[in-house]
């Protein structure tokens, strides 16, 4: 038990309710007198709204209210963008919750119907008559930047949301001019659609008599929702309670506070009854935020022996029609600052243009900016290896940052915490049997078969914080986390945290942290999260930060408890505090472990308070607000092995081997699960997933029949290994593991496919690597030869 509990793969306590269907999601909650809302969304990507006739809908059976944009004037403000990227010329277009005069993407809300039943709302939507004037649309970010492109917002010139740059190290022009070799590539990081298992939903219940509102919401960050709803809907924060009940996945798409959330609040406030809105899967595709959507022109300069001397890039990042809550920080701070990767690169320069397009707004999607950066760097390193005729593993080795355990500065301005990148790659190559794989590849080529081996070595920025940095980078919030640890008289423990896990397993791992720190059984610890009324303030679960930041807060709160318990134990054992010792949940006088007080003994005494030391308060409870001194930087090395059928272009992923280092693992089974899920999402980008718009801005991949989410039968067993390098500044040494797999795997699979196709002369294929795209690139290469 106790100390050994930290690090053991105990079962997730979340799972019984999830797999027996007894978890309570937002849509499961039914309140007396509740009405239903449904949104009428623009079927056109860009259109002026000349007139909306709601009269027939208003008279339809069961309909209580129909609202259009003008009805919300003075009631709810625009949906805010809360990452005000500095020094970037940021322009924020008003994102009216209900579009007023212009619809700017397929899915932009133009009206809302509130009715007694969900079916009545949809029947009434069909009766609303909107007179649209079609306008030209632009869907691709680089085209949006071009002269003569359709303009989305009158007040914003050239559709430009921002122009952000990162420059670090030596003179980049000089680096390229003096380089022996330069490799270049253009990469399209296609648009991805997150597809959480649970679609988004909101249930707002306003009580006119008290002016209080409770909002159940599918969110990764209920405290941020409370803050923003109070600002947008004018409900004081102290009268506003936000509850994230069971949340069925988010992957970043449940960070934003959306127009539909504010509209649901507005409807409940207006009508004085509970109103529920649940999006359909089609709406989820159209209107829940998407991810990626970059066009990247990248180049790398190096010496003839493979030493990188500079990296330069220009990125056009599609932001969608409006800026979602955290959107501007994703293709910039979380992307550009990561361009040194695991390598020592003496000069880096990147320009990022954020552009409005007539598409669904783009937000964080698992990895959020970092997969796009890792892909660029890992692609360039492979191109360099090819150009120099070197093994890709060797090129990486020549450029790795040497092993360090307490800080390393890269030229983009970050200070990595700890890492042994060569160690991770060495372990990977051993576990995968790299030399045998290369031998197998050579044999296969003789037989006319195309096997490829791809590497991806990565580092990521996790544990978003500290708050001072948040301020400096324009994030309109803090990035600390909080925890309350409360012992009850019986020795059972409640933990209240501000972060809001939604599938990651922290109800289990946080109990393990308490068990490790205080010697209680994890079964005696219940972790409470997701309700702003009974949890302390926190900034949410995203960016692999919940354990990295919230877990630190929890460990420190537990240590406060231990210190107080020590004082009480010393008093009960009639000893001086400095003579006391603690081990595995027991407090005793040094040398006399046979006569001890357990943490449960202390909890009882502290709660009944019959015999407390002088000056010590009753109760056994501690609160910590933890603001980390720096980010944490997990890293690793991944390998994919593929075979390409040159006749049809189809790719078979045969092996996937991962080595990840997230520091000490609280629960290795949960870590493995996170690694699996992350890897699969990254593979999805490489091979299957793409949100496709036609030139008119119609979403062509708007259902699960069209948009290919990875399925088990397309995947090999994933071989998971790890190394352990503690973070020097984290109380538990832990880093973060939620996004690692996604950050690494897209590049590994892509590099493997290009490696397979090398004998055919193919060096670039647009993602996803569908059979047709691979086949066409083979055909084109054959024509060139």
């Amino acid at each position, binding site marked *: 038990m106790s100390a050994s509990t930290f690090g053991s793969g105990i079962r997730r306590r979340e799972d019984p309710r999830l797999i027996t269907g007894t978890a309570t999601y937002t849509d499961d909650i039914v309140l007396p007198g509740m009405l239903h809302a449904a949104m009428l969304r623009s079927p056109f990507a860009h259109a002026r709204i000349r007139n909306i006739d709601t009269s027939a809908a208003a008279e339809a059976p069961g309909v209580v209210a129909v609202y259009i944009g003008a009805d919300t004037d003075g009631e709810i403000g625009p949906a805010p963008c809360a990452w005000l990227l500095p020094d970037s010329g940021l322009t924020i277009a008003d994102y009216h919750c209900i579009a007023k005069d212009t619809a700017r993407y397929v899915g932009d809300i133009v009206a809302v119907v509130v009715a007694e039943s969900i079916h009545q709302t949809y*029947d009434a939507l069909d009766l609303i008559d909107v007179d649209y004037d079609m306008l030209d649309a632009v869907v691709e970010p680089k085209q949006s930047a071009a002269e003569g492109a359709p303009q989305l917002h009158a007040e914003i010139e050239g559709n430009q949301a921002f122009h952000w740059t990162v420059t670090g190290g030596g003179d980049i022009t000089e680096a390229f001019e003096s380089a022996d070799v330069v490799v270049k590539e253009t990469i399209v990081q296609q648009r991805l659609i997150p597809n959480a298992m649970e679609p988004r939903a909101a249930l707002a219940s306003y009580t006119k008599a008290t002016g209080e509102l409770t909002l159940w919401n599918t969110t990764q960050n209920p405290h941020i929702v409370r803050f923003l709803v109070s600002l947008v809907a004018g409900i004081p924060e102290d009268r506003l309670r936000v509850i994230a009940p069971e949340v069925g996945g988010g992957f970043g798409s449940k960070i934003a506070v959306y127009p539909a959330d504010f509209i649901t609040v507005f409807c409940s406030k207006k009508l004085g009854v509970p109103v529920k809105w649940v999006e359909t899967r089609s709406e989820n595709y159209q209107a829940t935020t998407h991810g990626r959507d970059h066009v990247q022109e990248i180049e790398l300069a190096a010496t003839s022996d493979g030493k990188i001397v500079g990296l330069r890039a220009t990125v056009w990042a599609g932001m969608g029609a409006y800026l979602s809550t955290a959107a501007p920080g994703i293709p910039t701070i979380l992307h550009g600052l990561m361009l040194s990767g695991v390598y020592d690169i003496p000069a880096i320069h990147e320009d990022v243009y954020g552009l409005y397009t007539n598409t669904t707004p783009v937000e964080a999607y698992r990895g959020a900016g970092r997969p796009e950066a890792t892909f660029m760097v890992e692609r360039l390193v492979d191109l360099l290896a090819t150009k120099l005729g070197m093994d890709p593993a060797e090129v990486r080795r020549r450029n790795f940052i040497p092993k360090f355990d307490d800080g390393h500065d890269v030229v983009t301005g970050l200070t990595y915490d700890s890492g042994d990148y060569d160690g991770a790659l060495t372990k990977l190559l051993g576990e995968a049997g790299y030399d045998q794989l290369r031998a197998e590849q050579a044999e296969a080529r003789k037989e006319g078969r195309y096997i490829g081996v791809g590497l991806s070595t990565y580092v990521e920025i996790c544990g978003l914080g500290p708050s001072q940095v948040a301020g400096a980078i324009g994030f309109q919030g803090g990035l600390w986390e909080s925890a309350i640890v409360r012992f009850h008289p019986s020795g059972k423990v409640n933990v209240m945290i501000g972060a809001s896990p939604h599938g990651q397993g922290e109800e289990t791992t946080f109990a393990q942290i308490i068990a490790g720190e205080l010697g209680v059984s994890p079964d005696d610890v219940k972790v409470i999260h997701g309700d702003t009324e009974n949890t302390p303030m926190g900034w949410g679960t995203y960016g692999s930060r919940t354990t990295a930041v919230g877990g630190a807060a929890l460990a420190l709160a537990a240590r406060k408890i231990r210190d107080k318990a020590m004082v009480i134990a010393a008093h009960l054992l009639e000893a001086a505090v400095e003579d006391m010792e603690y081990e595995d949940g027991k407090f005793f006088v040094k040398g006399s472990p046979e006569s001890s007080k357990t943490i449960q003994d202390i909890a009882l005494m502290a709660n009944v308070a019959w015999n407390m030391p002088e000056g010590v308060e009753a109760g056994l409870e501690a609160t910590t607000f933890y603001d980390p001194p720096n980010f944490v930087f997990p890293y690793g090395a991944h390998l994919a092995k593929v075979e390409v059928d040159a*006749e*049809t272009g189809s790719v078979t992923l045969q092996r996937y081997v991962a080595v990840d280092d997230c520091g000490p693992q609280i629960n290795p089974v949960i870590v493995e699960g996170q690694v699996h899920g992350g890897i699969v999402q990254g593979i999805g980008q490489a091979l299957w997933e793409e949100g496709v718009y036609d030139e008119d801005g119609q979403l062509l*991949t708007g259902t699960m*029949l*069209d948009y290919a989410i990875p399925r088990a039968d397309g995947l090999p067993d994933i071989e998971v290994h790890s190394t352990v390098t503690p973070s020097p500044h984290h109380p538990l040494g832990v880093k973060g593991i939620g996004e690692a797999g996604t950050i690494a795997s897209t590049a590994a699979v892509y590099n493997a496919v290009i490696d397979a196709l090398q004998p055919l002369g193919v060096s670039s294929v647009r993602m996803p690597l569908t*059979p*047709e795209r691979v086949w066409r690139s083979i055909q084109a290469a054959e024509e060139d030869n």
Partner: protein
Amino acid sequence: MFAPQFDYYRASSVAEAAALLAEHPEAKVLAGGHSLIPLLKLRLAAPSALVDIGRIDSLRSILEESGTIEIGALTTHAELASSELLRSRATALAEAAGMIGDPAVRNRGTIGGNVAHADPASDLPAVLACLGAEFRVTGGDGDRSVRASDFFEGLMSTAIGEGEILTSIGVPTVDSACGSAYAKFAHPASRYAVIGAAAALVVDEDGSCTCASVTLGGLVPAPVRATAVEEALVGTRLDAAAIASASGLTGEALDTDDVLGDVYASAEYRRSVAQVWVQRALSSAAARCG
């Protein structure tokens, strides 16, 4: 999404279903619901009524009678896939049924609903056309049988007339010197066929091919026979070279503007690689002969 309003009738016999259809000409027949319900929920179809035939047990059977395997319209894909009779005597059909969607879809979706919907990307039409199936239809002007070549008229269109119900499908049985197979290029999202190739081969006792049937689906509005491939196979010993050479003639069946393309796979690509799937189906079918 949420379906628009409709009236619902549950028929307990084929006769009752036919009477309900006569009474409600705008009604649609509901079997397993795996094609119709999504259309309703997306509001792409708005029938005034549904006539549910899903509980007419007499329509759910696989029986062999006088040279024909008679398959009731309500037989599920899972039942087709696991039928020993089909696996041994109409292998391609069992094989194709086992590739449809996922287990949940196979447990609910029915052969009758599938072919009546006539989605070009569906697997079963090509296989049934390849095996020379006949479709039994009742209602309207009485009972009739329609050959596969006449049944599938085009995109989402069949010979089932107004007021008619598809009750069963007859697949001719063949002797053990015959082998059949289905090869499929599945769409990664929908699992529908981007390209589907069905092949049935008969050999004489010397191992020479006496009869070949090759049908393509997925990439055309209705199943298409690859007659050039068939003709090239007859008289060969079905060795790899013969199959490769015959498969190379697949394009002749696709020399039409009707080849379907979408955002995932263009018509040009499908036309170019279809022969690979024909070759795979033929190789499997040949291995199963004898």
